[in-house]
């Protein structure tokens, strides 16, 4: 697959949140504010890229029998690094993301990509895949977080968006509302993506 395809794959066709439905835990918990969404997304992207790269580089070296522990060590190292970096230089994010940064270690997205892609693909592709997946994840959770913040709090990135008269629907920032919003977004995303796929298949057929 061309690098461009690999990259776009992570954002649209195999979007980790909307298509692969991976990493639901942090998605649900973090997406109460758009700022959190971006912060978490970037942290996950960093870890995805680094771990994909390293695992791909060492794929010949990691015996099959111990690949899971090896993945864990590698992923955990990068997560700890980003955690320490956040604590030292972006304490605001460290405060608001709190426990969910260390939980990136067990974020299914990273594990899944390590297992399904990085372990059997060249380093550059893996890196790009990590980047694509990361950006896809960031986009997805930021969209979800923005919607939840606007409807459930009346603000976006902390700025008042809705008019004063708007009474925020608090349930949207609570977990039940999160599930509902996610469900709706999943449905929307799938409709859009399938239509794009159909169109592109149609075009390919047309082009012969």
């Amino acid at each position, binding site marked *: 697959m061309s690098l461009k395809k690999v990259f776009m794959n992570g954002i649209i066709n195999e979007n980790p949140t909307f298509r692969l439905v991976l990493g639901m835990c942090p998605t649900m918990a973090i997406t109460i504010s758009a700022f959190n969404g971006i912060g978490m997304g970037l942290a996950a992207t960093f870890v995805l890229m680094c771990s994909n790269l390293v695992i791909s580089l060492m794929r010949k*070296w*990691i*015996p099959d*029998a*111990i690949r899971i*522990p*090896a993945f864990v*060590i*590698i992923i*955990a*190292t990068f997560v*700890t*690094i980003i955690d*320490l*970096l956040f*604590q*030292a*230089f972006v*304490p605001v994010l460290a405060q608001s993301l709190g426990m969910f940064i260390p939980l990136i270690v067990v974020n299914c997205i990273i594990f899944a990509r390590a297992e399904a892609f990085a372990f059997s693909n060249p380093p550059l592709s893996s890196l790009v895949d990590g980047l694509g997946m990361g950006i896809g994840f960031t986009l997805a959770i930021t969209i979800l977080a923005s919607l939840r913040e606007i409807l459930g709090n009346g603000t976006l990135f902390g700025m008042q968006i809705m008019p004063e008269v708007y009474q925020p629907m608090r349930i949207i920032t609570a977990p039940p509302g999160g599930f509902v919003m996610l469900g709706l977004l999943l449905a929307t995303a799938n409709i859009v993506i399938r239509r794009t796929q159909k169109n592109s298949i149609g075009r390919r057929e047309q082009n012969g």
Partner: protein
Amino acid sequence: MRDIVKLGGRLLIFSLVAALLLGATNMITKGPIEEQKVKAAQSAQREALPSADSFEPIELPAGGEYPLLTAVYEGKHAGNVVGYVLTASPQGYGGLIPITMAVGVDGAVQGIAVGTLAETAGIGSRVAEPKFLSQYEALPADPGVIENRVDTISGATVSSLPFKQATKEMASFTMNHLGIEPHEGTRQLAGEDLLRKEQLADANMFELLSAYGMVGDFGTIQNIYRGIAGDATVGYTFELASQGYIAPIVLRTSIDAQGKITGVRIVSQEETNIYGARLATEEGIPFLTQFAGKNAVSEGFADDLDVLSNATVSSNAIIRGVSQAVAFYEQFLVAQPDVDEGIVFEEIVLPKPDDYKAVQSAQRGLRDGTLEKYRFTVRVTGYHEESPILMRVDVDTEGNFLTMLAIEQHETPGIGAEVFTNAGFLAGFITKPAAVDTADGVQAVSGATITSDAIKRGLKQVARAYQSLTEAGIGEQMPPAAAPVFPTVSGAFEGAEFEPLAFSDEGKQFPTVKAIDKATKAGTLIGYRFVTVSTGYNEKDKITLQIEIDVSGTFIDAQVLSHAETKGFGADLLDDPAYVQKIVGKSAVAESSEQIDRVAGATLTSDAFRKAIKQAAVAYQAVKEVP
């Protein structure tokens, strides 16, 4: 086997590399993380003491004197010390409770905040609620004051008690170690209190005295607030609703401690625009300002007040409201203590005590030898059965009820407890003849019937007691209550000689002490023996105790001479030498009685016992000969 070594070895290498990477990152980030922590702590400090701009930690004295304190910071502004921020983390129910308290150099608590708690939600977590924390606002930083004025949360003692203890330690640190004199601070008033402060400028705090709408003569009074500055009463604010032409006019008026009206303000009104409503505009100002500075005296109050022309009904409504406030103030709020000044009370023997068993004692009050009033103490059971109400009822020489005071009551705050000061209730018998009919005719306060009925019962008993006194012709013979002789037993004074000591208890500090003997041995004073009579569970047969205190001011003996308490409850307590003798060896001061347990299931008995011990100590302090 080789495989395992190979696999293990690989993993080892991975872990090693990972560790090195992490170590490197740690080295880079360690510094900045520490900085962040310090900044966070500083922002917490700044939040606690906003007036300071720099904080320096103070070293805590070693030696475990302040075990709960974790840190103290000195806050400075432009080089001058403005206050201190103290932190403590006492152990609560589910974990540590991080408390930050700021004390200003003026000796008052400026702020208090609680960090993340692990206490039980809805119970222990209430220590972080504003309702609990607001008790500390502007409080003098003095452990004794905190002990007395801060109430722990009932049902959440395991969380609130250590909290209180920690704050006491903090206050002790500022008071003793830093030498800051505790003082009452100024509270931030909010909302309606600010409006009240307009009329009573010196008040720091407003305390709701009565929120029950009055009826009858005080029908316009809705709420009464007492304006307080520190311990002193600055004045009273009345919120009134007086029927105007169309609807009740809501007013606020205040009377200061000198008995002058400080102002009248219309809070809201719905009178006719062209007539009564003008009172709320500029046209009404001359009318309203008439009140300011007037003495709060009912007689002739409205005589020189002008109404606003074409707004007579509304004006009169306002005058009526303010007059009622003045009348209420006159009757119930004007400081009463002077009333009894100069009166000497003597005990009277009641002719037929069995007819009014609830009456504990009767006295006549003489001013310069002339009889002025009678005073009865009566005990009734109200809502709280374990804590009976002790009331003091005064009757004047014409046979009318003068006053009723609760000496001791534990009725429900806000409900039963309010009856004692409820104007409508009191108006039912005060200044009316002291007869059983009067007491019967008093209207119980709705919602507080049990307490009201109890008070009425007490009044009936007083009425009967008074009747029997009049029948017996009180003026005739008034023997001072004969000093009853108590059979004493040998106590801890060996080979001593006892001679009765005459004493008088003017201030009623130790009424249970009925006899005091001096104990001497070979002519030298070695101590005192007290005989006390206190009422426990059995109201008829009281508990008599013999208590001995030696010249060094220590209890050396305590014995029960007689009692008729219930077997299985109070009797077991008094028959147990371990309980009775527990006071032996303790210092003869009032506080020592608190070391004796108040036993659940035998509260009345143990209370009577403790009271007797306490009063024996007080009596000792009063009569002891200073060498």
